Each structure stands twice: as structure tokens, then as C-alpha cells.
């Protein structure tokens, strides 16, 4: 149920994103989803890729600070209110969201939301119980 996500530390310097993406491209790593959190001084790039362990090692070897965390990828119906009901469940269960980002699939029928929870196991229990579909790692890496 848990999906592995890579996080990379970025100084606010021009060209760093390009370096990361080209390093990954050279090594045949495909990016599934990404989001960039930025502050005035630095950024954190979060990536879900098709080959997490390999990507992490490659970035490390290229001098980047890389971390690995586990996130949940949830499927929501691509229509008004699709996300609202999921967030309602999260609220009712008192789960704290560290951050979230979204992407859509080719089919266009469902959207995928990536959640980083403080307490991932509690989140899995609560969301599963309320019938939310949580994608497995294999599903996400293969998208």
C-alpha cells in the first residue's frame, strides 16, 4: 500500500532541476509524479519514479542529498467532490497531512492524490475502512 518517494534537497541555484532530470534520463529512469516545495532559500523536490532504489543511488552518486519516504497514493473519482469526500475521512480520523500533490491518469476517469501522512499506518486503516482505493507500489511505479 505504501509507495516509495524520493526527496532531493535543492539549493536555489539555476540549472539544478535540469541536472536532476537529465541524470535520471541518462539512466533510463522514468518520473511518475513530482512536486517541488520551495522556500525563499531552498527547495525540496519529491519524485515517484519507476525504479526508486536505482534512482536514489544514481542521484547520490551525483552528489545530491537524497531521502526516501513512504507516501500513500489514493484514487479519487475525477468529478466535483471526488477529493472532498476523501479529505472528510481524513479530517474525521484526525490524520495530519504533511503535504499532498495530485496527478491524473491517461484514462482521465480518476485522479491520483499523493499524501504524506505523519502516521501512515493509521491513515491506511482509516482510508481502507471508508472504502477509499489505495494504490499499491507496483501499480504506481508501472503507470
Amino acid at each position, binding site marked *: 500500500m505504501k509507495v516509495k518517494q524520493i526527496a532531493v534537497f535543492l539549493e536555489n541555484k539555476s540549472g539544478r532541476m535540469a541536472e536532476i532530470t537529465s541524470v535520471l534520463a541518462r539512466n533510463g529512469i522514468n518520473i511518475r509524479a513530482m512536486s517541488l516545495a520551495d*522556500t525563499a532559500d531552498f527547495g525540496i523536490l519529491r519524485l515517484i519514479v519507476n525504479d526508486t532504489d536505482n534512482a536514489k543511488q544514481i542521484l547520490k552518486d551525483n*552528489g545530491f*542529498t537524497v531521502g526516501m519516504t513512504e507516501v500513500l497514493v489514493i484514487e479519487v473519482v475525477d468529478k466535483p467532490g471526488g477529493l472532498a469526500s476523501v479529505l472528510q475521512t481524513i479530517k474525521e480520523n484526525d490524520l495530519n497531512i504533511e503535504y499532498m500533490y495530485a496527478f491524473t491518469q491517461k484514462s482521465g476517469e480518476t485522479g491520483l492524490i499523493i499524501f504524506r501522512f505523519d502516521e501512515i499506518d493509521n491513515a491506511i486503516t482509516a482510508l481502507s475502512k471508508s472504502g477509499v482505493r489505495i494504490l499499491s507500489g507496483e501499480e504506481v511505479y508501472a503507470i
Partner: protein
Amino acid sequence: MIWNEEYETLPREALEALQLKRLQAQVERVYASVPYYRGKMDKAGVQPGDIKALTDIKKLPFTTKEDLRKNYPFGLFTVPLERVVRIHASSGTTGQPTVVGYTRRDIKIWAELMTRCLSAAGASPQDIIHNAYGYGLFTGGLGAHYGAENLGATVVPVSGGNTKRQIMIMRDFKSTVLLCTPSYALNLAETMTEMGIDPSEMALRVGVFGAEPWSENMREEIQKKLGIQAIDIYGLSEIIGPGVAIECTEEQKGLHIMEDHFLPEIVDRDTFDPLPLGESGELVFTTLTKEAFPVIRYRTKDFSRIITDHCSCGRTFYRMEKITGRSDDMLIIRGVNVFPSQIEHVLMSIKDVEPHYQIIVNREGSLDSMEVQVEVSEDIFSDAVKNLETLAKQIQIEIKDLLGVSCKISLVEPKTIQRSEGKAKRVIDNRKI
């Protein structure tokens, strides 16, 4: 081990008698042979005959780096150049280099003092000594080299730079003693990890580190990362080079000063009035036996205090407290004195923060601003912005608490701060004053 039992354990009374005898002879010779010193003494109204007790030294004028520069290159030598067998010089990054000279006897004494230091650090003829101090005009490389040879150890004169090759040599030769600057020791440790070499594969047992001020936290860091005992050595080229003072392995509490050759004093940081030895102030040295380049009351700009307590190692030489700052390195930020070593202390007291940092000082309008760059290692990195901002805030608060100055903490990518190949460059001061 004590290399020179006779001198290093001399009872204080005999030692002080020897110091007085040597001081009188030194002052007399300097007065007779160097017009510049004679002029200064005449102006101060003091003659060599006025030195009747060790405390009379305070009648003599100080010597500063400025005096050395004024007499560039050989103006303060007391012997003709044909008796000078070696020249060393400071890098001269802040102006004209300062030049020092040695007679054959000076070199011999220097080697003896350096041997005493290595012995105090636990080295013996069985050791393989990896000497990564820079060879050349800098006194570190050759100074340590002669001492290690005199000890009878096997010296590997690698000098600075080419870090990966150094590590292979160190591993293949099974070097047991490492001599370098503390910042370079950390660079070596980091490079070993990068190369996939576990520092415990090394035969290293002890390191003798000097030539830059370093904090106790940095010592712990080096000891932990390299798995060795880290010993502090003190010296400066104006006095002789490395070998002026050394920590003993027994106590590692302060550095024994080679008092049979150098007379230490402590003076007030601002007024330069002599202070009792136990008080903290600027360290001043007078050489007692130097031939080519003696100095009288040289103001080192290093801050310390003298420990007069008995030491369990058996040496009777007083100890100087580990130097934590030099007035040369001192930054004045919005009127507050800041030493890079204080910032280092704060950084290293926070878990997992890397010992690589740089301080950048700017002036915007009439206001100074200080930025401390800290590398984000994997251990402190988090995918959540909040955590990194909290860490930066924590560093900022702790620096503010210790120094009373606020600064900006910039988190930077690993390896972006230049690694030390010798003396670490900790401060970039962009102020135009």
C-alpha cells in the same frame, strides 16, 4: 613518553633560573646585533642590563607582525645570511609575507622540540608517520618532518593535497600517526567514506593536529570519525613553527609549553598590560635560544590562559589552554566579537550537522549581516520543509544565544563548501571597510 627527561621535568626553580640566564643572553645579543630592536629598546628607556629577574621582561617593548613586515625580508635576523641555513615564510595573504630564518642550531633545536611533541602524543620509533602538513615555505611540513625523523619513526612526507592518493598510501603503508590540520583530518575522513573505505581498516592510532584553532566538539568529531586519539599541537612560524606546545596523552588538558626555549606571558587583550598567568588574554612569547630569528615579547594574537597546576604526565612545563580564537580571525559583527570557532561549537553540538561550514559577512548600508552556510547531509535532510526550517531556526537561535548576534542560516547542498587542503577557509568577509 617523555623524550627529554632532563629538561621536560626540570624543577620549576631550576627551570626559571635557566630561563633568566637564557633571556639575559638573548636580550643582550638582540640589542647588540639588530638596530631595529636596539632603537625600540632605547626609545622605551630599557637596556639589556635592566633584565635582572624574569618579571623584568615587562619592561621590554612588544614585537608585532607589523614590526616583522617593516623589516621584510631579513631585517630582524641577528646573524649574517651565511649562517642561515633555512628560510620559511607566512603565506602573506593579508599583506607582505613574514620571513623567518634558522641557523643550523635552530633547526636542531626545532627538531628536538618537535620530537618531544610527537613523544608526548605517544609516537615512537615503531610508528609510521603520515605527514600531511604542507611542505614548502610553510613551517608545518618540514618542521614536523625533522621531528619525526629525529624521533626515529618512519616518515611518509606526503604533504597536502591529492586526498584520495593519500588515503591509499595511508592504508597500504599502514600509517599509525597522522599529522595535518584538523580541517584536513575531517576531509580525509569524509573522502574515505566516499571511497568506500571504513576508517577502522586503517592502522591509524593517533593524530597530531594544529596550525588552526579548533573546538573541543571538532576534536570529538575527528576522534569519532577516524577512530583515533586527536592531540592538539601549537606553534607559529614567528616563534619557531610547530613544536612550541603540545598536549600530553595523559591529561589532554592544555598544551605543555617548551618553556626551556620559550617564555610565555599573558597580556590584556586591549591594554596589553601583563596579566597573572591564570587569567585569560593574549599569548605573548619570547624566544630564549633562537639564533637567526629571535623575537622579544611577540604578540601572537592567540587567546589563551596559562595553567600552572601540576600535570600527571610528569612534565613541569606550564600548560596553555587550547586556543579557541585568534584576534586575526575575530569578526566584529555589529559591534560584537565573533570567533569562527564559536560558530563551529554551536554547529557541532547539534546532532548530525556536518562539520563543514562557512561564514559570509556582508555590509548592507551601514549594517553588517552574517550568513552561516551549513551543508545538508542525508542525516538531517527531510522531505518536509517544516523540518528543515526548524533546524535552521534552531541553529540560528543557538548562535544568537551564545554570541548575541543574529545571523541567517543558509542550508546548502553537500560538498558545495570548499574542503580544506590545509588551513580551512571559514570566513568570507565582503565588507569594504
